[in-house]
């Protein structure tokens, strides 16, 4: 009897057989293309055909000033976007966790930017940013802050900021919900004890809530950094990387090279850079996850 039971969850071949379809699918659609991208990056592949060119794509890419600018810009863009998402997400989660009237409605209302297809949400932003007819420019003109029409996506700096704001709009709900879930997981008695000791609201937040949810904050910052790094549709729809390259991030540049100009080889070289950076992020994330799990299991 015991013997039979023991075998119930150790039938390795069955375990693998059940996983095999999903694993094969991913190998075919994700893993193989990753390898193919690496191979293509050493060729001058285009619609016409391909020849092996060695490191030429990389040499050209790394020696071009433009490319270095794009990498720097990607990180600046990412830094602001992720920081804003985390700060707004934290404030939002605190508010949604507080005992306010109608918070269950607000909890639902936070989610739409995440649920709605990005492409459609961006249609709303396109109109908001419109220099003549959008409500932001409209209010600005009416109140006299702007002395004429102002196209937010038409100038380098304002386009850069505008795309960050739209990206924050899309990314914050997810962050908020995760923070909120973490806050609700903080044991009640910790707060009650602090309350009895006369701790103020601030104290309770900084000495109990914040330390308790730190693992989630760290995880979310990394995940959010990865998602932000990968952000494509938002910038593509709002500016296509313009004006004059002001919002061209690595992902946008990769797409433009590969499928705008059909220079697969050059695009692939950029994709490899993206892959290396993502692998670094992912490795960092997984190492962190393993450490947090270890810590939890120790406690």
């Amino acid at each position: 009897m015991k013997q039979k039971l023991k075998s119930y969850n150790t039938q390795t071949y069955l375990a693998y057989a059940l996983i095999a379809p999903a694993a094969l699918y991913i190998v075919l659609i994700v893993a193989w293309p990753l390898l193919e991208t690496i191979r293509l990056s050493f060729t001058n592949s285009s619609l016409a055909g391909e020849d092996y060119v060695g490191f030429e794509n990389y040499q050209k890419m790394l020696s071009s000033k433009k490319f270095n600018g794009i990498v720097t810009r990607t990180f600046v863009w990412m830094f602001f976007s992720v920081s804003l998402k985390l700060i707004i997400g934290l404030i939002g989660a605190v508010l949604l966790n507080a005992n306010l009237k109608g918070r269950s409605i607000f909890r639902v209302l936070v989610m739409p930017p995440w649920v709605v297809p990005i492409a459609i949400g961006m249609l709303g932003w396109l109109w908001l940013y419109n220099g003549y007819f959008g409500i932001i420019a409209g209010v600005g003109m009416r109140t006299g802050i702007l002395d004429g029409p102002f196209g937010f996506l038409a100038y380098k700096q304002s386009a850069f900021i505008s795309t960050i704001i739209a990206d924050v709009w899309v990314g914050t709900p997810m962050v908020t919900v995760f923070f909120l879930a973490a806050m609700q997981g903080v044991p009640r008695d910790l707060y009650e004890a602090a309350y009895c000791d006369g701790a103020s609201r601030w104290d309770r937040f900084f000495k109990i809530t914040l330390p308790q949810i730190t693992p989630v904050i760290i995880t979310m910052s990394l995940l959010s950094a990865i998602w932000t790094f990968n952000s494509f549709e938002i910038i593509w729809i709002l500016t296509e990387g313009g004006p004059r390259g002001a919002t061209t991030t690595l992902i946008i540049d990769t797409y433009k090279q590969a499928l705008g100009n059909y220079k697969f080889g050059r695009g692939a070289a950029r994709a490899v850079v993206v892959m290396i950076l993502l692998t670094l992020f992912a490795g960092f994330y997984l190492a962190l996850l393993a450490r947090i799990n270890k810590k939890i299991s120790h406690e």
Partner: protein
Amino acid sequence: MTFILLPFVEMFYASLRPLDHLFRSPYQFYSDDLSFWAYREMWKTVPMLPRYIFNSFFLASVTSLITLLFVIPAAYSYARFRFPFKNSSLYILLAINMFSGAVLLIPLYKVLRTFGLLNTYQAMIVPGVAFLIPTAIWLLKSYFEKIPIDLEEAAFVDGASRVQILRHIIAPLSTPGLVVVGIYAFIGSYAQQFLFAITFNQKKEYMPIPSGLYEFIGYTTVKWNEMMAASLVGIAPVLIIFLFLQKYIVAGLTSGAVKN
């Protein structure tokens, strides 16, 4: 809050205003003749709109069903069996999740072209499924883990076959989990339609709502009010589904992530 809802309000407001008011300068906050006219007219301006809406639904449904087909056995296996490389392969799945479709577009484009799948429904479904599988496995695994293994073992000892266990114990108990993961996949594929659709498909009859609408933005006279009306109609179904099920979706997504 204002920040979150502003784009939607603006879209809705723009959809109610007649075109010449929309383009009036200086900016006017109020138009005296708001109407739902655009909601009637849009079907003429965008004649393919019903088709786009159908496509969006069709693509999202097929994508999520296929995802479930692949994910159910895999997630069950991860939840119940012990085997070599279990943890490492789970982490690899997480890592795969971090590569966005954009990086893989080049080889995918070539593959789809070789198999003659460009400009078909499959061109959008095949890559869509791949990017939903990892998260779906993690989510469903945590649901399966909540089903007490004692139940299965008791039945097993009593001589029930695996198929019987699956039918009489696992299937009924995991229905809520399957629904949540299915909806996650549906919303996910509804949202990710844009990138694959603009890259792998040029045929109007296969376009989902987002890329179908963006076709019109390139034109010189964009009827913005109708565009907005059409997008709102396009996103209404997902929003409604989400509103009804948001509690389960949010709980499902966070329980997996926070715990792990």
